[in-house]
């Protein structure tokens, strides 16, 4: 097994890089979209409810089916990395939106009232108080989104998106367990690494402001 990994190391490394790139691009887009959406959700209950419902529904679509749905859609679909990125973005959106909203909603009402009573405008309150306090929760959402995206990205190979899924699909087709593992193991390791790193970040941010006693 180790020999197998060693002899294919260049290809595994290249595909791991592709995999990471897919996830990084998709995650960046969903952070850029998800945080404003999360803020919107916490400000306007009605719109928020609808946004959450939609992201929830997307989450329940089996990943392979989602890729399938996207292929025929003009501009965003087709075969290749673009479709994969759209799908991964949609998947990782929900935890980011939800955790941003929960983080803002979770701010102590006394703190919120103090901010208003001290004469902050509502955008100052958001920028200076609510968002900073929501950061650990937002990082938590990004962490869940990242782990999710790393897993789902293995399916990207099915639509020609590349990444470690390429090895898995080839392994399945050739009934070669070593080939499947050559794709699956690095993908699993990436997911664990992302989880550990982002958890550590979440904790260290919380600790810095004394929310968790070190």
């Amino acid at each position: 097994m180790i020999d197998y990994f060693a002899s294919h190391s260049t290809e595994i490394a290249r595909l791991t890089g592709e995999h990471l790139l897919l996830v990084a691009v998709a995650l960046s887009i969903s952070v850029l979209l998800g945080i404003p959406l999360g803020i919107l959700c916490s400000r306007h209950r009605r719109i928020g409810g609808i946004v959450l419902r939609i992201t929830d529904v997307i989450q329940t679509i089996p990943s392979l089916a989602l890729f399938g749905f996207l292929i025929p859609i003009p501009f965003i679909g087709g075969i290749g990395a673009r479709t994969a990125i759209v799908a991964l973005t949609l998947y990782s959106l929900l935890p980011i939106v939800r955790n941003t909203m929960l983080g803002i909603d979770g701010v102590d009402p006394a703190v919120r009232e103090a901010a208003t009573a001290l004469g902050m405008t509502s955008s100052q309150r958001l920028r200076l108080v609510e968002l900073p306090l929501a950061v650990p929760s937002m990082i938590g959402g990004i962490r869940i989104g990242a782990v999710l995206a790393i897993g789902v990205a293995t399916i990207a190979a099915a639509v020609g998106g590349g990444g470690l899924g390429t090895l898995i699909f080839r392994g399945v087709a050739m009934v070669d367990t070593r080939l499947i593992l050559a794709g699956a193991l690095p993908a699993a390791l990436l997911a664990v690494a992302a989880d550990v790193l982002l958890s550590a970040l979440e904790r260290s941010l919380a600790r810095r402001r004394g929310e968790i006693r070190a």
Partner: protein
Amino acid sequence: MIEYRNVSVTSQTGQFILKDFSFSIGPGETVAFLGRSGAGKTTALRLVNGLIQPSSGAVLVDSQDLRTTDLIALRRRTGYVIQGVGLFPHRTVAENIATVPRLLGWTEQRIREEAETLLSKLELPWDRFANRFPRSLSGGEQQRVGIARSIISSPSILLCDEPFASLDPLVRRDLQRAFAAVNRERRTTMIFVTHDVYEALQVAERIVLIDDGSVVLDCRSARFLQSKLPLARRFAETLMMGATA
């Protein structure tokens, strides 16, 4: 100068929370809103910085009807101290205190000087406390920081909602003293909501007794204990019990 003109506040179910409030508070006057829980004291207080709007009638601050006043600017010159303190947990003591001065655009040097002086008056040495986060402070220390944050910019009006209610009795007495001293020096117009007669007598020169949404007694603090009003008698008795306990 704070003026309530026939102010009523009704709940969403149409019940009166405040009924026909009409009186004024002069500049530099210190007034305690005394009453039982749910009497409407807090509502009456929150009208003054526009956290609540009256259902009818008008609230005027410095002769300005709050319906046509810039509430953000008003709040920046109105201190507000509450039981829950509401310190920003992600900011140090120094940063918490700097909140309003920064909104007002003071220089960092001026903020630092004022904050240091004020903290030492409230018996929190700058060197030991400035860089700590609120979670690491005791309840009494947090409340002192909350007071400093509310009064650093020398607000013309100070609104206090049972700020010491959750503190243990000894700390509470100490803090009442420190607080009264700082205020005497500043001659700030103050409304102090409390259900503790001792506290009302300690910090305010005038007592407005509120019951069931209405003002039932409005008198100088010195005369409160002589009042024949049954509710006032009952409050006065709690003082005697406190003294013998």
